[in-house]
């Protein structure tokens, strides 16, 4: 018996019990649909993370003041005062893998423009910070080195701050108040969206680090160094020399903890990868469970079907069907059930992820790999769980089968 005939036969048999076939397929539909939807959500999440990593600048090396313990008591992150602009210059001078670096000091401030006011973060930094983070201005310009040297009262606004304080007005050249001090707005940055951690990167003001150090925070040290290595590989390779240099400069004895952190983008990417792997594994196991449950459903229905159609099997054998003809027929039926379920499930998954995209504003990426895997897996489920009932049908004794009531 040729394949098309068998397929036609299988479709006919399944069409005869439409409700039953549909309910049987439901397990597979839900399983596959869940896989497709969750994988595309997961891929959307990965995309967000990747974008976040990109937004922090390529080849980035991030150095943060850490939680040293001067005098035994541990201080919180960023609290140590040992990271200085001299450290940064030393790194630039001595670690050839690092191309450039920008310092950062942060604080919370109240900003006021006319009758609008807003509490936001301020980052004091140098002009090259924006190049390292590949973050251009959309209006005005970035403050210059002169203004850093003179600790001038100039600032750049993130788009969120600009919108809240100025609305439709053009902020460039306007005077705002940060704390008690008047600042001139020199530019507005491009929107950068959410960070990997989920906070709004545009809700921030930037000023020369000298200004923030002296006039806002009243400190002499810095909290972060945003450095850029000569290449992606170099960013990892630079971690060890930077660590060694800073330990030496900070007089940290062997065995003592670092009072700083060095992070690279690949650390973050690795972390994201790991999270992704765990998530994929989790989704995969949930999906396999539901597909196995679906498969058992198929097996159950196929067994019922074999029993119900015992006479039919007997007749087929009497008119010349061989064991393998009968086995093939029932196997194709099971695989048709599971694959139809798989295809419908793919449709359901695609629709589901489209809905999630729309209503939860969460990017979803359709994974072709997941779709192919789901299709193959559902066929495999059909073969695996259809085999036993098909075997049972094929091994019926035609005489008994014909007599079956």
């Amino acid at each position: 018996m040729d394949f098309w005939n068998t397929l036609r036969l299988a479709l006919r048999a399944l069409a005869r019990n439409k409700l039953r076939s549909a309910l049987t397929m439901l397990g597979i539909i839900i399983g596959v649909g869940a896989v497709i939807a969750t994988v595309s959500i997961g891929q959307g999440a990965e995309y967000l993370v990747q974008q976040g990593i990109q937004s922090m600048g390529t080849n980035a090396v991030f150095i943060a003041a850490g939680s040293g313990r001067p005098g035994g008591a541990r201080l919180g992150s960023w609290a140590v005062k040992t990271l200085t602009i001299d450290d940064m210059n030393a790194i630039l001078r001595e670690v050839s893998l690092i191309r450039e670096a920008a310092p950062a000091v942060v604080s919370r401030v109240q900003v006021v423009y006319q009758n609008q006011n807003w509490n936001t973060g301020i980052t004091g930094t140098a002009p090259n910070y924006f190049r390292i983070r590949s973050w251009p201005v959309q209006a005005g310009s970035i403050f210059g080195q002169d203004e850093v040297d003179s600790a001038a009262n100039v600032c750049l606004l993130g788009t969120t701050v600009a919108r809240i304080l100025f609305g439709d007005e053009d902020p460039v050249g306007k005077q705002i108040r940060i704390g008690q001090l008047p600042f001139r707005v020199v530019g507005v940055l491009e929107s950068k969206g959410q960070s990997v951690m989920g906070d709004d990167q545009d809700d921030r003001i930037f000023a020369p680090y000298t200004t923030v150090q002296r006039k806002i925070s009243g400190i002499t040290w810095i909290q972060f160094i945003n450095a850029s290595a000569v290449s992606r590989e170099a960013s990892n390779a630079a971690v060890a020399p930077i660590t060694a240099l800073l330990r030496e400069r900070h007089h940290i004895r062997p065995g003592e903890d670092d009072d700083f952190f060095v992070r690279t983008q690949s650390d973050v990417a690795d972390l994201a990868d790991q999270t992704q792997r765990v998530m994929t594994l989790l989704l995969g196991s949930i999906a396999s469970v539901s597909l196995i449950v679906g498969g058992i459903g198929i097996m159950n229905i196929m067994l019922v079907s074999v029993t119900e159609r015992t006479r039919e099997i007997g007749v087929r054998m009497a008119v010349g069907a061989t064991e393998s003809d009968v086995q093939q027929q029932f196997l194709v039926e099971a695989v048709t059930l599971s694959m139809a379920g798989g295809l419908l499930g793919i449709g359901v998954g695609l629709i589901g992820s489209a809905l999630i995209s729309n209503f939860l504003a969460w990017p979803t990426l359709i994974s072709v790999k997941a779709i192919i895997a789901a299709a193959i897996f559902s066929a495999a489920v059909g073969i695996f769980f259809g085999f036993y009932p098909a075997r049972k049908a094929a091994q019926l004794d035609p005489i008994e089968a014909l007599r079956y009531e």
Partner: protein
Amino acid sequence: MDEQATATEEPSTQAHSDAALIRLEGVHKIYDLGEVQVHALRGVSLEILAGEFVAVMGASGSGKSTLMNILGCLDRPTRGHYYLDGTDVSQFSKVELARIRNRKLGFVFQQFNLLARTSALENVELPTIYAGITPQEREQRARESLARVGLAGRAHHFPSQLSGGQQQRVAIARALVNRPTILLADEPTGNLDSRTSVEIMDILQRLNEEEGLTVVLVTHEQDIAQYAKRALDFRDGKLRRDTPVRDRLIAREVLPTLPSLQDDDAAGDT
């Protein structure tokens, strides 16, 4: 036709070929039911020639069903030989037996055994699916076969829309579709009223006489066996009597004498 009808009085002399179509030699069938062994056939030897119309008679437990299963290649003898068309099929594999059932044998059952919710045409097509012929030829053959039993107009009816007699005729058409050499009918009239029974016997007699089809009919009804040419009586797993049928009934002649029933459908189809 009259010639043939009279010639059937002496079936053993009617054979034109000396090679028997069916030859059983000392066939035993023992069912091993674990604790007990059932000796269903105890050394049956017989010959059936091409073109014969044989009735196999016997009470239940006589072994006639077992004989039918062996003749139909649905089962194999425990001992002994079964030569079908000159070939010893008694030790054939299941696949080989399936092929023989498909090509050489046609089955008609008491329960009709048509596939439900499947049109008459598709039911008739069933054996052709396993014969490896093209779909066009399959349908053509099925239509021809239906026409031979007078049901050309009912090709797309489902079994549930057909009367018992019509269903049995579809079953006969199905048995004929692969042009078998032997038609095996197991109590074909067991579920039919007397007039319809005679109609079925009419079809079998016509196939036998007009087309030379060998018919083996299992029945326990004496009056049905009267339509055959030769009667084999079985008792306790043995062939007890092998006699030509005396006063053979011809269905075509019997039919006009029977009262027409309301559900009779023959007129509409033929």
